[in-house]
């Protein structure tokens, strides 16, 4: 759940139509039309990427007159399907994947059941990846794939490029080669597996 209190606002006098704002928006809410950036106020989730990356300082973040409340009510969706998607992505449904917004894996999984198909849909519907927009991209991509959707990168943008290695697909020879340098590959995979398979709520002994 996220309360969106901010909105991007473009200063047309400064905007040069360079399109960098378009390339870094995680919800595709800003587009250049007739050489000026235009913000879709309903779609903006207030992450400030456009404001922070505009080379001409043409975007400012302003307070919304009426904040937007966004999020998915997880209880309304099939809990077994939510668990299945999370497990396939090697995530515990209750684990937090977006540290800025506080979004948990189960909410992202529920977003797919509510119609999301892409990482941008997930961000728009849950608010995940609309804080720093950095650290949660991989679990979101993993969850999109686990929900059965193909990842299609925006070739005109820099929103994301692709999935990367995980604890579950590291090459064995690499693990062996660097085993003595403090990386604890196997032990960390075991830890992550334990998290994935621990039933919540309330910790490992609560309702296991």
């Amino acid at each position, binding site marked *: 759940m*996220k*309360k969106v*209190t*901010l909105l991007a606002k473009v200063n047309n006098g400064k905007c040069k139509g360079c399109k960098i704002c378009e*390339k*870094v928006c995680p919800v595709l809410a800003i587009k250049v039309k007739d050489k000026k950036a235009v913000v879709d106020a309903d779609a903006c989730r*207030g*992450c400030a*990427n456009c404001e*922070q*990356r505009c080379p001409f300082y043409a975007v400012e*973040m302003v*307070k919304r007159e009426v904040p937007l409340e966004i999020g998915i009510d997880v209880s309304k969706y099939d809990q077994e399907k939510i668990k299945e998607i999370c497990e396939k992505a090697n995530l*515990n449904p*209750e*684990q*937090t*994947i977006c*540290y*800025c917004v*506080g979004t948990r894996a189960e909410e992202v999984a529920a977003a797919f059941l509510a119609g999301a198909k892409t990482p941008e849909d997930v961000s728009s519907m849950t608010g995940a990846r*609309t*804080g*720093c*927009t*950095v*650290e949660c*991209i*991989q*679990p979101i991509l993993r969850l999109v794939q686990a929900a059965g959707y193909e990842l299609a990168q925006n070739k005109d943008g*820099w929103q*994301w*490029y*692709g*999935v*990367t*290695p*995980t*604890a579950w*697909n*590291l*090459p064995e020879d*690499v693990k062996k080669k*660097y085993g003595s*340098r*403090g*990386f*604890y*590959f196997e*032990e*960390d*995979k075991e*830890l992550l597996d*334990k*998290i994935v398979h621990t039933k*919540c*709520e*309330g*910790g*490992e002994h609560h309702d296991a």
Partner: protein
Amino acid sequence: MMRKPIKPITPKPSQYGINPSLVKTRVAELPGMVSLLLKDLFPELPDTIFPGGEDALKDVRKAAEDALMKVDMSMIKPEQSVNVLCSHHGFTLFGGEPYAELLKTIKDIIEKRTGCKNIRLRAGVGMRFRETEEYIKRYGLDTYYEGKAIGMAPVDEGIPIETEIGTLYGLKKVYDADWIIHAHHTDVREVHFHRQVDKAVKPFGMSYARIETRSTYHQNLGPRAANFVARAIFESEFVQSKFAFAAFLNVGPHGIIGVDVDNDLYALNDRATFIGCQLYGKIMTLLGEIDECIAVLDFPCPVPYVFSAGVIYANFLGANTDLYDLENPLPSYTWYTEAFYGKNGKPILDNIPPINPAIKMCVHNYAWLGYPSAFFSEHIPTVVVGQEQGDLFDTDPLNMKYMDYATTIKTTEAAMNFAYRATGTDKVIIFDGAMAGMNVSESLAKLLIEKAPMISEKVDKVLLPKWFKQRGVDISILKELQKTQK
């Protein structure tokens, strides 16, 4: 051993913090506060060149020049281009000038030794995408680099890098030159993340990297295996084809010790591991002896990065455990740990350690936004000084919930008085960047003075051998370094 308080680092103008004029009182100025010098607590710490006398900055430059004259630069030809890579955190160390001086010296010596003129500065960031733009201006690096100094953010255009473990992504602007110079420092900073494993290599997987790579580190591999990400990128054929050398400020918790320049980053990394484990390990272990305290944030940096005795607040949150002991998979605070708290507010696994229970209250006198910090205010009673500061946090996309759990108090004096009454302790640790030492209350100073000799011996005789063994570092290199520091 107790001295009058050290002057804290002054508030800095920044889009990520309140106007410095709003910081009316520094906690170190209040009654009952004293300072301790780290060299008094641990006399075996090596001498520093900065802070020092009036010529301290010149001494940093001299050390950098001497080290840069010895490294092999023959691969750089006059007609080629060079990117000097740096990161935001260096500018928060000891006022920022020493790191800026290193960056200026690198440019000068490369020009002098190679004839190359096309030298650019590429400055990476954490999550405050314009932070290094501010530093570039503040330290005159834009003019020094003749208009060729730019900030980079992890959402900027990327390039794929093929590694031993698969495709990872770097920032295009990092690699758009014939050669790259890795300009960094040995300050440990986020021990809760890197655990002093390949710390010297880390920027290749972080401030020089795209979001996909950084997310791999924080979400895909686990708390210790994550540290392989940087090595995977650095060892790639692509990065190796561009890497010329690394130039590091050798930083201890008490100041700049020297400058280390090497074509072999792993050799430098082993030496950095020694500094990180022994010099920082002692003060960090000592802070773990604090039984109860009020933690004060009072430094121009985001909440987790404010300093006391060279240790950041985020590390103090985990000082109830041994952050260097790799047998402990999860520190009390790291993002994996935060991720593993369930909806009931408790850890999903029973063996996840709690946030340092010695911290009875946090007084946020002055600290910046730009890092997701709601986890801290959710778990530690937090008072924020000044409505303006509270309001600023409510405008930060990374901190929309920080003030959901914190309260504001009008003045620093009132906040401290409230903290004393509410917690019942008069032990105070101030994270205000006091150079060469730390500002604390007299009662806490007494405890630290009493415990320091025992901790020093424990680290040297018991913990260091264990820490080094866990990291597989080459002890012979470290023994050589110890000799040169004596």
